[in-house]
């Protein structure tokens, strides 16, 4: 068995489940049900929305959250590797942040497992992502009268970096699947056939289960390395900075992404990545932690061949012997987990930002 039991009952249960034959898996795993409703504070979410699209919350005011999590790409990025901060590249694919609020673990290697406030802080301050000194960020927000009003309306008082890290997660609560056929029940015949394969012969549900179609755990599926990480020095130096900071030994000689090894420092975990959610995949190509697979057809093809090549690959990955129609049906099912695009003004901040920070009048007399 590829998965070693580490901690807690959940993992143990999952590990026990792996012994089952592929045939009758439905029922052994949590169904892909609708996501629970969330209580959203409209004023806080609106503030978070303005922040999410505002380039001024990165160090050199060059990129916003939305530059790597683009609405028209399902809040992911169409490049295999995320662009990263100006002056460097990146080494992983930008994941969709739709439904991120429902996750329990974030980042492809699962290194963040607390809450979206921490994730937001990490994205803002990480040197190869937004490189923001949050003290500058706070003072920028205080210089924009619109923010001053919005923070007040949201009940946060004056703008602060702490409130920014609350408001963005509140906005992320609004980015959830809307009208996905799997939730509405309006699935095509092909998608329904695909679901049967998904839960049966193809065995996808062993990892892709529950409301988000992910068990939140890390596996090695043998996805090939993206050599652009190492051949492009802009990406490579972001990777080196990351690996150095994470304390991964021999980071100058690494020729692969160590993945979940980063968390456990156990060689057996090399090359494992957290099962991604399958919701909203329709818009977020390319796929996998490093963007190495371009389309959903190719993803299904990859699993149909039994995944990639890796001595530590999960032993459950075997050729699936799916036919052409099976593959089409599986793709149809995967697409049925995507809802309406979240690209209207309801989700996207469309008003322009001021080109300059207005002056605080009568500055010598007012309190800072």
């Amino acid at each position, binding site marked *: 068995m590829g998965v070693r039991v580490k901690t807690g009952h959940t993992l143990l249960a999952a590990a026990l489940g792996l012994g089952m034959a592929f045939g009758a898996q439905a029922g052994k795993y949590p169904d892909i049900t609708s996501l629970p409703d969330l209580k959203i504070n409209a004023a806080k979410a609106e503030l978070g929305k303005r922040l999410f699209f505002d380039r001024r919350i990165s160090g050199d005011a060059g990129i916003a959250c939305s530059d790597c999590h683009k609405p028209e790409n399902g809040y992911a990025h169409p490049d295999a590797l995320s662009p990263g901060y100006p002056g460097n590249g990146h080494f992983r694919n930008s994941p969709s942040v739709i439904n991120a609020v429902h996750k329990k673990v974030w980042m492809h290697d699962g290194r963040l497992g607390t809450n979206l406030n921490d994730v937001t802080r990490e994205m803002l301050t990480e040197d190869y992502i937004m490189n923001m000194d949050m003290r500058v960020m706070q003072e920028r927000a205080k210089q924009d009268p619109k923010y001053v009003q919005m923070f007040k309306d949201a009940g946060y008082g004056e703008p602060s970096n702490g409130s920014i890290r609350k408001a963005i997660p509140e906005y992320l609560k609004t980015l959830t699947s809307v009208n996905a056929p799997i939730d509405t029940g309006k699935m095509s015949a092909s998608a329904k056939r695909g679901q049967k394969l998904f839960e049966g012969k193809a065995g996808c549900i062993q990892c892709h289960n529950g409301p988000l179609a992910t068990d939140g755990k890390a596996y090695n599926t043998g996805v090939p390395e993206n*050599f652009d990480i190492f051949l492009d020095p802009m990406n490579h130096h972001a990777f080196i900075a990351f690996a*150095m900071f994470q304390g991964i030994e021999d980071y100058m000689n690494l020729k692969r992404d160590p993945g979940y090894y980063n968390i456990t420092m156990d060689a057996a975990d090399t090359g494992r990545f957290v099962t991604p959610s399958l919701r909203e995949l329709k818009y977020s190509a390319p796929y996998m932690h490093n963007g190495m697979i371009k389309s959903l057809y190719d993803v299904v093809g990859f699993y149909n061949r039994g995944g990639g090549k890796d001595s530590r690959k999960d032993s459950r990955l075997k050729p699936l012997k799916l036919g052409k129609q099976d593959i089409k049906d599986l793709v149809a099912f995967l697409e049925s987990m995507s809802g309406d695009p979240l690209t209207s003004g309801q989700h996207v901040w469309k008003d322009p930002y001021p080109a300059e920070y207005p002056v605080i009048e009568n500055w010598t007399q007012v309190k800072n």
Partner: protein
Amino acid sequence: MSNVIQTPTLLAAAITTALLAGCAGQATSESTAAPAAEKSMAAAPMAMAGPAPLAPLGEPPIPPDNLQSPAKIELGKILFFDPRLGGDASTGCSTCHEPDQGWAWAEDFSRGYPGTVHWRNSQTIINSAYFPRQFWAGSASSNESQARGAARGGVAGNGEADIMEARLRVIPEYVERFREAFGTQWPIVRDAWRAIASFERTLVQRDTPLDKYLLGDKSALDADQLKGKEIFEGKGGCIQCHNGAITSDQDFHNIGIPPNKRWEEDGLAQITFRFEQYAKGQTQEGYRKAKSDWGFYYRSKNAWDKGKFRTAPLRYLKYTAPYMHNGVFYTLEEVVDFYDRGGFDEDGRTTLFPENKSSLIKPLGLTDDEKGALIAFLESMSGEEMLMDKPAMPEYAPLFTLAELEAAQEAK
């Protein structure tokens, strides 16, 4: 001396000043010819001895833990000009210390990281090697730590050590040069600051007209400049703080510089102003009410240090306008007028901490001729402009070949 002694370093500086002052008798006794100067000098609490005399500049001190080497200096020169030693690879040392802007920046505030503006004037690198402490409030204790601090500051380089070090490692020429200069397998970012400091220790100017004069060439200063020297050492009282070979007593004084009006007129500058209060560990109350740079206070947290800044060196100042910690004066004429008025600008503005204003700053009663002579003398502290072409920047290159990556993939 007007300053309360804060730390052993300052104490040592004060003792040194007193010792050196033993040989200052000639200069001061000469200068007492002018009655106004007598008054001014008498006001100085340090009546027991005069300030250190002006002196020719010697060799810069070299720290024993970072000795000079040609490889290090050459590496430091390239790094000094390399914008990749900053957050977004756009802002390096030379970005705010441009050789053709006096190795400083020709605006009141230094330009700052993209998306920001700085809040203090960029100081020249020329002769920085002689200073035991760097920055306007003396917050760095060496050129090495100044380079590190500037590269990392939120409104300066905004670079984190990890990414800057990683960048150096994917530039093969740097890998080679660091190995040669420091013997390391891979560049270490701390060594970048050491190399830059070594380079900066070569940026010295010791052949100014004043140096030549002090070394015995009596023709090096003209009559006007000699008259200015007399005022500098006498009626102007400048030498009370601007003394010794480096023309600075290395102490902190409030001379009455008013806040920069840009803080009232420029939103970006207001952002940085508040950020600095926050970043420098102001109290909540201080953050709310500060309307000027509190200077040395941020380090000592003593109320009597509000508005004090390190005595700026006067060497190379011909090329480093504007002047003062916040760049409020664009010409030497304005500077001299400011002192002549006893520390007030043309609108009568002065420090927001008049209670800390140095008692050495008093109306001087200089005539126009005297002001002109003083400026002529100040300019004799600068030699030829020191220009330098930007070196070629070494390029990024992959560390691995495709074949190596394919072999690694095969071995997975």
